Structures are given as structure tokens and as C-alpha cells.
């Protein structure tokens, strides 16, 4: 049961949509448990699918806690009203905890670690391998832990999550990530992207490095709001440089 739930957990977002979010994927992920514990009559299985297909949301890596716990509650024939309330209660924390730990902290930290190592001389393919291995260590551990704890603890799975103190770990990973962000920025400043070509000298390179530093500081200060006009900035800068090359340099 545990393995079948785990494999299906990897596809829990396959039916992601703006109305039920993860709901339909959750129902599909729970099918092995529903078949085993709710298949005494065909109508009962259909109704169980319908109940679990309702609106639900969670971070995909932490959704295992919900899938495991719901499978355990169906196994233990917990009252449907309790199951419905459990789904409502866990979706907020499972979403925000996962976003904070994985998307905001772990993913950028792993990308920056990989980039930093390659800038320090690691071959690119090794850099990609380091990124995928390190990132997925936590990814797979979270999925496995979620299913295991959920099946074992049922509706008490929230206590296991609370004991793990994930927000504190997210904060620690985030601090390491900020350090790595500074380190990668320092490496780029000192060596250029290709180590054989120093970037920190006068002329156009120095101008772009200075502009980059100012934009970097602006990004640090303005955070998320800064993103949306950068594609226009990029296309404008590239086009402008090309026109400058054609009209004045050539």
C-alpha cells in the first residue's frame, strides 16, 4: 500500500486546475486505499472518489502527509465528517510550509550551490548532478516521510509535522542560501562567468557590472515585486546594444 501511494503521489498535480486545485489528483492518488477499504459496493467507491475530488491544496512534496493520513483514516473507518474537516484543516499548513521550505529556500539554495561549484571549477555536468542529487534527497525524503507518518498516525499526523519544526529548518536553509547568493555574486564579480576572462575592469564591462550591482541591490530591497518588468528590460537592453553596434560601432 505504502509504495503504491508513494508512486501515485508523484502525479498528484497532474489534474491541477483553478477550481479544485489538487482535489482530483488527491482522489486518484488515494485510489489504492479507496479500492481496498471502500470497494464493498461500487456506489460507495464512486462516492468516496467524489468526496476526495473536492477542492484541496497542499505543497506537492508535503501532500504525502495528507494522502497517508486520509488512507489511514479510510482504513480505520473514521467518520466522514471528521475526514472532511481534516482535509480543510491541513491544506493551509501543508501548502505554506512546503512553499517556505522547498520553493523559497531549498530550491534556490541548491541552484546557487551548483552554480557556485561550477564557477569554482567543477565540470558543468557534475554541477547538474550535484544539483539533482542534493535537491532530490530532501524531495524524496519529504514524500516518503509524509506517506509513512500519515499512514501510521492518521489524523494525528499534524503533531509529527509540528515536532519536525520545519519553519526553523526553512529559516536555516534560507540563511545558507543568502550566503551562497552573495558568494555566487562575488565569484561572478571577481572572475566573470568564464574564469579565464576577468570581468571587473573599466569600459563597457565595468558599466554593466555596476548596473548589475545596482539592480541586484534593488532586487534585494524590493523582493518579489521586482520581477515582472525584467523581461522588457532584458529585451530592451539586448536590442539597444545591437542597434548601438550597427549604427555607431560599425
Amino acid at each position, binding site marked *: 500500500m505504502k509504495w503504491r501511494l508513494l508512486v501515485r503521489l508523484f502525479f498528484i498535480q497532474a489534474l*491541477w486546475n*483553478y477550481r479544485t486545485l489538487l482535489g482530483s489528483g488527491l482522489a486518484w492518488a488515494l485510489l489504492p486505499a479507496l479500492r481496498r477499504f471502500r470497494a464493498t459496493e461500487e456506489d460507495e467507491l464512486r462516492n468516496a472518489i467524489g468526496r476526495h475530488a473536492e477542492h484541496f491544496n497542499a505543497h506537492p512534496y508535503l501532500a504525502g502527509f495528507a494522502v497517508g493520513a486520509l488512507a489511514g483514516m479510510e482504513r480505520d473507518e473514521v467518520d466522514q465528517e471528521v475526514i472532511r474537516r481534516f482535509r480543510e484543516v491541513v491544506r493551509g499548513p501543508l501548502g505554506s510550509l512546503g512553499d517556505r521550505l522547498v520553493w523559497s529556500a531549498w530550491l534556490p539554495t541548491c541552484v546557487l550551490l551548483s552554480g557556485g561549484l561550477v564557477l569554482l571549477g567543477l565540470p558543468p555536468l557534475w554541477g547538474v548532478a550535484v544539483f539533482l542529487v542534493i535537491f532530490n534527497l530532501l524531495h524524496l525524503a519529504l514524500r516518503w516521510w509524509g506517506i509513512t507518518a500519515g499512514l501510521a498516525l492518521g489524523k494525528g499526523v499534524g503533531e509529527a509535522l509540528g515536532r519536525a519544526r520545519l519553519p526553523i529548518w526553512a529559516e536555516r536553509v534560507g540563511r545558507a542560501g543568502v550566503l551562497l547568493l*552573495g558568494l555566487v555574486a562575488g565569484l561572478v564579480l571577481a572572475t566573470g562567468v568564464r574564469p579565464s576572462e576577468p570581468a571587473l575592469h573599466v569600459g563597457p564591462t565595468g558599466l554593466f557590472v555596476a548596473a548589475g550591482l545596482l539592480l541586484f541591490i*534593488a532586487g*534585494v530591497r524590493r*523582493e518579489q515585486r*521586482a520581477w515582472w518588468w525584467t523581461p522588457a528590460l532584458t529585451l530592451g537592453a539586448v536590442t539597444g546594444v545591437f542597434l548601438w553596434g550597427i549604427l555607431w560601432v560599425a
Partner: protein
Amino acid sequence: MEPVGWLLLVLLGAWAALDGVSAGQFMISRPLVTGTVTGLVLGDPTTGFLLGLTLDLFHLGVVPAGGVRLPEPGPAAIPAVYAAILVGSEGGLAVGFSVGVVLALVGGAAVILQRRWQGRLVEGLEGAGTDPGDLTRRLLLALGLDGVRGAVLVAVGLGVVWAVPAGWRAAWVAGWPLAEATTWALLLACAALPAGAVAGNLTPERGRVLLLVGGLVVGMALGFWMPGS
């Protein structure tokens, strides 16, 4: 490029699109990974990695929380690296980066359409439910469409880059006025603002500036003292 290379890159695009949300999320879908693999297929993994990393830094501050509208940079990095290597020289890097930025926005719009369509696909499931076979068929249909979406996006991107006349590519290379290090400085300056925004996502603490400056000093020291620099 040989037909096998085209096929590999289109399949990589399909896998990256699926990995982004629908299946696995092993982060095969990061530009860092798709860019390097594309570079490997085309014989230049270093350019693939560096362009992929720059595109990754450009999109790193965007957090896929709460189903918000996002660009999709993973599949986009494949035509981006192809463009950089096909055009060649410093101008190719700038073209490749621009292709990646634009295609990431197109991919993001395609994801929105896919999610809306999936909303219609799951209609009737809540409450009344369905039989397990029907639910599985709907899920496989959604997975298939997502894979096809990624493959088409990459195939169209590669096709458009390939169809640009050789004379235009040569004119672009000839007209591009910057040396390689300067071009990288320009592209990294474009990625600097969203990369800086990552600091706020990583930790909301005020002390992050000290950590950032500490890392910057260590990075610069390592960069200056590194063999070959």
C-alpha cells in the same frame, strides 16, 4: 543538427514540461538542467550550463505558490541554448538569452490554458464521483496533453530559430559590438534584479544583508585567488 538530436531535444522539452508541475517535480525542468543537457546534445555543455544558470537566476525569485501565473523557463532553455550555439559568438549568447526569456513567458501562458482546460476535464468529479477507470483516463489525458504542450513549444522554438536565414544570423554576429565577458556582464545585469529578489524569499530576516555581504566578500576572494583567474 541530426534528426536524432532534434528528437532528443523535443522529448526533453516534453519531459521538462511534465516535470514542472504534473509529474515528479524532480527539477529536471530547471533551465540549469535542460540548458546543460541541450548543450551536451549540441556538443557545448559549458555554454548550455552557463546560459541555463543565467536563465535560472533570472527566474529564481518567482515562487510557484498558490497557483499564481508564472513563466515556464525549463523547456524555454532548450531553444535558448540551441539559438546561442547555432548563431554562435557573443551575439549568439544575447539572442539565446532573449529567446529563453520570451519563450518562458509563452510557456507560462500555455500552462494557464492547460489548467483551464483541466478545470473542464474534471467537471462532475466532485460529489457524484466516477469509476476509477474513468478517473485514471482523465489523468492520463491531462498528462499526455501536458507532454505534447512541452514538445510543441520546444519544437516550434527550435524550428523558428533554425528557420532564421544564415545571412541574418551572420549580420547579427557582425553587428553585435560586445566582447564575451562584456556580453555575460550584460546578461547577468539583466538577471541581477530578480536574482537579488531571491534574498527576500530565502529569509525575511533583516540580518540577511550581513550574510549577503559576507558571501560576496568570500566569493570575490575565492574568485581572485582561484587558479587561472
